[in-house]
């Protein structure tokens, strides 16, 4: 492909690509994102190729490998165009059937269709499946249409037209103005207005400036940045180039965690192709604007998401926050003004430039505009990446898109914003997702993690879990974070073991308050969130653990007791055989008993006791009933 030298040449190419792809031509798209790959989607593509060849269809049917569609738990995900038929859990063995039936005759392959968990009804088309239907996929939507390794797919769908518009019809100032008016706020955690940040970098006196992409995503449950980078890297590059033009940068850096090999691979391919096509590099499309992009592969650490830590890492030093109160927008990478945004923020930029600030502002709430991608995980039926307008309620996300909770369980809380977000209780689920609303509730939009917790979740244990995670992620530089987290973990562990005191609750609150004020960086300042919100909304659970030695969710092992109900035990010996510590005494014809000293509370007996007997009990905070014998006794004596 020769280099494109003018916007007109790009447009000619796009028209040619559109023309070559007739709307009625069948196309099998196979998701080859990380999730589906792990489930064998690469083999599936080969199987489709072989099958098309076998059935003599290779020249009349296209195959496309795309990025993540967001519904990873149903992988491999396949969509057949032009009808928009969705198949899930597709295995290489299914390829023959799909080609023979759907491609040749239009017949559906029933077992690959989506089955609604509530009604049991089978749904066929993309637009009918609730998981997709209630989303608004501005940023993610192209993922299912584009082969990320092929720049022409992106160009065909209008890619790089926003860059053309910025370079040829706008000035740096008007681009900045547009992003500012749109009120695009950082999608990575802080929600800081991107336009303001850009302006600070642009106005900083140093003429050498950088634009940076944060693709570190330290939040373990979140993978939206990975999915965009894997599935549609050009939209990030285009956004970045537009940003560079606006702030006056000639160089950009993308920090991507090395644990995202596919994102790294697709990103390198995208940069190479964009350079080849003249969409990056010197004199882009003849505009006179030069812009190059470099990639930094970093070893992921939660704290690297913090901007100064990330820049320190790019410079080749240990990723540690800097103490200076000079914003990185003014003095960042190599002390030059540096504008850092995360992947999702950059990916929104081409849309804003193309469709305008007013379009963007028409979506969302007063203070939070546009759409946001959330990683919906935990105890919901449909897990995955969901993109919704800001202002959608948590309840709608969980119940309409997520399809409600698994096994008909009741919801207890949702943790938003990643490990340092807060836990929001059921009665506040009608709150809209919005930067300001969530922060008022003690949580945040953050990275966009949404962890759904059911009634079997102990909120004290959850707080302990997140605080412990954060203490492993702290860089350890500043005292309140390092030592504060250490103390918080110890106190919380004590409470879950039933050894806490009411004074411990005060200490938790006191220490959290100091940390949120005095820590050096956002990791430490926000770390107390999961603790403070559970203390606020689930205080009774803490008190219950401390005073009554009772864990209502039945999670905290130290507060649990297992016993065998003598009226139910049929002396089948199944539990005794499954107990790992031989804590269960009994024998043929003898009601079994549990030796409490030996029991490690693993729950194996409860799980293995046949459901029809239902003899094992798990209790917390109450004594074993009097009628439970301490030694095995003959069965018939009790059975009468």
């Amino acid at each position, binding site marked *: 492909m020769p280099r494109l030298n003018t916007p007109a040449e790009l447009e000619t190419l796009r028209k040619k690509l559109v023309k070559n792809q007739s709307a009625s031509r069948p196309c099998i798209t196979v998701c080859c994102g990380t999730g589906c790959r792990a489930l064998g989607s690469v083999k599936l593509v080969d199987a489709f190729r072989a099958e098309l060849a076998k059935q003599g269809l290779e020249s009349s049917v296209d195959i496309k490998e795309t990025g993540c569609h967001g519904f990873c738990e149903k992988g491999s995900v396949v969509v057949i165009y032009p009808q928009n038929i969705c198949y899930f859990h597709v295995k290489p063995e299914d390829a023959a059937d799909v080609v023979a039936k759907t491609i040749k005759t239009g017949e559906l392959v029933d077992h690959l269709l989506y089955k609604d968990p509530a009604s049991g009804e089978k749904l066929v088309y993309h637009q009918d499946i609730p998981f997709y239907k209630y989303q608004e996929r501005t940023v993610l939507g192209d993922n299912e249409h584009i082969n990320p390794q092929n720049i022409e797919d992106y160009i065909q769908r209008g890619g790089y037209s926003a860059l053309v518009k910025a370079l040829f019809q706008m000035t740096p100032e008007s681009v900045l103005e547009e992003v500012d008016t749109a009120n695009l706020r950082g999608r990575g955690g802080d929600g800081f207005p991107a336009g303001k940040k850009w302006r600070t970098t642009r106005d900083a006196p140093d003429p050498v400036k950088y634009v940076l992409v944060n693709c570190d995503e330290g939040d373990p449950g979140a993978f939206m940045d990975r999915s965009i980078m894997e599935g549609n890297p050009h939209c990030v590059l285009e956004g970045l180039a537009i940003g560079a033009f606006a702030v006056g940068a000639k160089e950009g850096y993308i920090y991507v965690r090395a644990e995202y090999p596919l994102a790294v691979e697709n990103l390198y391919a995208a940069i190479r192709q964009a350079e080849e096509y003249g969409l990056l590099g010197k004199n882009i499309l003849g505009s006179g604007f030069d812009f190059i992009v470099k990639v930094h592969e970093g070893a992921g650490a939660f704290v690297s998401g913090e901007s100064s830590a990330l820049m320190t890492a790019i410079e080749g030093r240990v990723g540690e926050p800097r103490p200076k109160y000079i914003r990185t927008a003014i003095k960042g990478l190599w002390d030059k003004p540096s504008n850092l945004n995360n992947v999702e923020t950059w990916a929104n930029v081409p849309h804003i430039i193309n469709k305008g600030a007013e379009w963007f502002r028409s979506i969302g709430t007063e203070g939070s505009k546009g759409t946001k991608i959330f990683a919906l995980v935990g105890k919901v039926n449909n897990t995955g990446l969901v993109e919704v307008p800001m202002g959608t309620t948590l309840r709608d996300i969980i119940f309409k898109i997520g399809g409600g909770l698994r096994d008909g369980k009741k919801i207890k809380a949702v943790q938003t914003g990643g490990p340092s977000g807060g836990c929001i209780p059921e009665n506040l689920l009608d709150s809209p997702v919005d930067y300001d609303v969530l922060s008022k509730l003690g949580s945040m939009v953050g990275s966009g993690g949404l962890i759904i917790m059911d009634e079997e979740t102990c909120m004290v244990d959850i707080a302990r879990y997140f605080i412990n995670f954060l*203490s492993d992620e702290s860089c*350890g530089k500043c005292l309140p974070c390092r030592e504060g987290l250490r103390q918080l973990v110890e106190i919380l562990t004590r409470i879950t073991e039933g050894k806490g005191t009411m004074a411990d609750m005060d200490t938790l609150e006191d220490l959290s308050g100091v940390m949120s004020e005095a820590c050096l960086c956002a990791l430490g300042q926000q770390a107390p969130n999961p603790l403070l919100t559970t203390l606020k909304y689930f205080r009774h659970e803490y008190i219950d653990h401390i005073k009554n030695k009772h864990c209502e969710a039945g999670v905290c092992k130290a507060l649990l007791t297992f016993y065998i109900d003598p009226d139910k035990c049929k002396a089948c010996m199944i539990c005794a055989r499954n107990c790992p510590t031989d804590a269960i005494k009994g024998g043929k014809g003898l009601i079994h008993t549990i030796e409490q000293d030996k029991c490690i509370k693993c729950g194996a007996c409860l799980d293995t006791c046949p459901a029809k007997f239902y003899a094992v009990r798990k209790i917390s905070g109450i004594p074993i009933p009097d009628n439970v014998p301490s030694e095995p006794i003959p069965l018939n004596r009790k059975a009468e």
Partner: protein
Amino acid sequence: MEEIKLTIDGREVTAQSGQTVFQAAAAAGIHIPALCFHEQLEPYGGCRVCSVEVVTGSRSKVVASCVYPASNGLVVNTNTEKIRHIRKVLIELLLTKAPASKPIRDLAEEYGADAARFSHDASFCVLCGLCVRYCTEVKKANALCFISRGTQREVTFVPEIASRECEKCQQCFDICPTNFIRANFEMAKALTFGTEE
């Protein structure tokens, strides 16, 4: 250098641009406690004991004065109840690590800090980084470094360099607030320096 004016604890104070709030306060005779600060070293911002409140409009935020730049018109409070409380808790955390350290005990006395409610983990080093930074910035020997992160963080000698440089220098021993670096050195010597005579 240009002259600037700021308000510290209600007093108008003159400072030089480029100075930190800590320096501006010190020049005006206003005492702010500090632990990881050292005149010869780049400010570090690790211990947070020098925290003060900076007021803008109706909002205030807590910042580490040893790294926060003084600027014209800035309003700073160094001794509010909130700040004293933050310092007290920070000092309690220091006490859990190095209960016998003289500078820390002095601070504890000044702020009425008592670490009884916390669990103790006396590892003696409070990770103020003075030794590492002194060795790097002043001596330029790089014989000391931090290893690991989070609660696992530690100061350690780099054996190849330390076995050559440290015996004759030992200057960091005097600036360590807990005396730990001396013990650490003896330990490192015995364990890792080898015995080439």
